């Protein structure tokens, strides 16, 4: 679908696409919905539009937003040993490292499991809602989307969920452990976070932010 470019080219820059991973240049040809355009050298997927992806991502981001707030506030695990009880929320777990230099760790943990996923969900909504509604992009939408992409590796909600499972097994010998509502919220959250990343075609988002009304359908 795309072709490699002759060394002495005079093609307008808008009709070229460069693989961000290996720097190969191709003539741009947009794949149809459901198809994928891949870099032929390093096989990175360059464009992969999905039907109604914008709406789906917005729905998922909204759900993530609600779930993170819920999961952070409600107790998610409780422990019971010989009459003494303790229940913790995700926020408590994040702030477990208190006192002295450990405070750094508390801040980092809170940032990685609550703030980064929360911020990403908010930024995604901010960027995509106007695009899907066929309006002009929100002010600074491109910077917002860039920040959201930069945050991607630092949003670690799913890793925290696996950490829960490990901690449960370790503590189970010591005391009886019960699940609070937030535990299940966090479980659903993990699935949603992964779904959110797989729907998103970055090229299409950038393209529709740049040319808001020319792209016929919001195919983010």
């Amino acid at each position, binding site marked *: 679908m795309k072709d490699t470019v002759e060394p002495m080219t005079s093609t307008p820059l808008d009709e070229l696409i460069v693989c961000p991973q290996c*720097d190969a240049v191709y003539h741009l040809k947009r794949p149809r919905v459901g198809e994928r355009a891949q870099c032929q050298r390093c096989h990175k997927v360059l464009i992969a539009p999905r039907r109604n992806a914008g709406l789906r991502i917005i729905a998922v981001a909204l759900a993530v937003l609600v779930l993170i707030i819920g999961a952070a506030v409600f107790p998610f695990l409780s422990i019971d040993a010989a009459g003494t009880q303790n229940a*913790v929320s995700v926020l408590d777990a994040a702030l477990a490292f208190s006192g002295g230099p450990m405070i750094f760790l508390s801040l980092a943990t809170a940032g990685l499991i609550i703030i980064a996923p929360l911020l990403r969900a908010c930024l995604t909504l901010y960027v995509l809602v106007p695009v899907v509604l066929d309006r002009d992009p929100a002010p600074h939408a491109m910077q917002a989307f860039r920040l959201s992409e930069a945050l991607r590796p630092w949003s670690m909600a799913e890793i925290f969920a696996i950490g829960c499972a490990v901690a449960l097994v370790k503590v189970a010998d010591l005391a009886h452990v019960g699940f609070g509502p937030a535990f299940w919220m966090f479980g659903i959250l993990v699935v949603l976070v992964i779904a959110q990343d797989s729907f998103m075609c970055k090229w299409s988002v950038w393209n529709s932010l740049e040319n808001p009304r020319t792209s016929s359908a919001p195919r983010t």
Partner: protein
Amino acid sequence: MVCMELTGKPQNVVSAKDLNLVACTRCAKVWPVSASTCGRCGHKLVSRDSQSLSRVWALWVIGFMCYIPANIFPMLKTRTLFQEENSTIIGGAVELAHYGNFGIAAIIIFASVFIPLGKFWAVAYLAISIKAGSRISMNRRQMMYEVVEYIGRWSMIDIFVVAIMSALVQLKTLASINPGPASIFFALSVIFTMLSAQAFDSRLIWDAQVKDGGPGRDE
């Protein structure tokens, strides 16, 4: 899903650098090589990051230096009615295996020993191969880099386990678990190795192909 294999042979691939173009690493927009910031998303543009390797090595060294105390100091301080116990990362996993939790012990060992060490090795190998060349094909090295980027975050799992346990097990006099000093070093080590991997400019892997004037020795 239709997968579009592209026409032409790999040796026809021209890199943006050769066309005097530069692509934004965040949003992939193409600009002439003279542009310094991306006009679309505002990200800084560099055709090839000449500082990339030195930043990779600097962050790598910091990460490695943090990894050593992370394994020496105790990760968890467990206090029960009669005794107080400090366990290191490996000690804690050995203890779990001792009680029969082999699966969990394996996850801990894998996430906090094999992944970090593998990552140190892989990043160092990639950085060296840019300068010295490599017998491993470019596609393999690219894959290696992607795996390192994807899997590196999972080392954080041990920190989260410590966080959950020390928040949860606070049963006044009966038992309590508190984080040890190793946790802070371990977290720093994971963060710095993630930064080190991000600093690596993967386009450098592919430049050798252009330099050789073809697919080269490793296709």
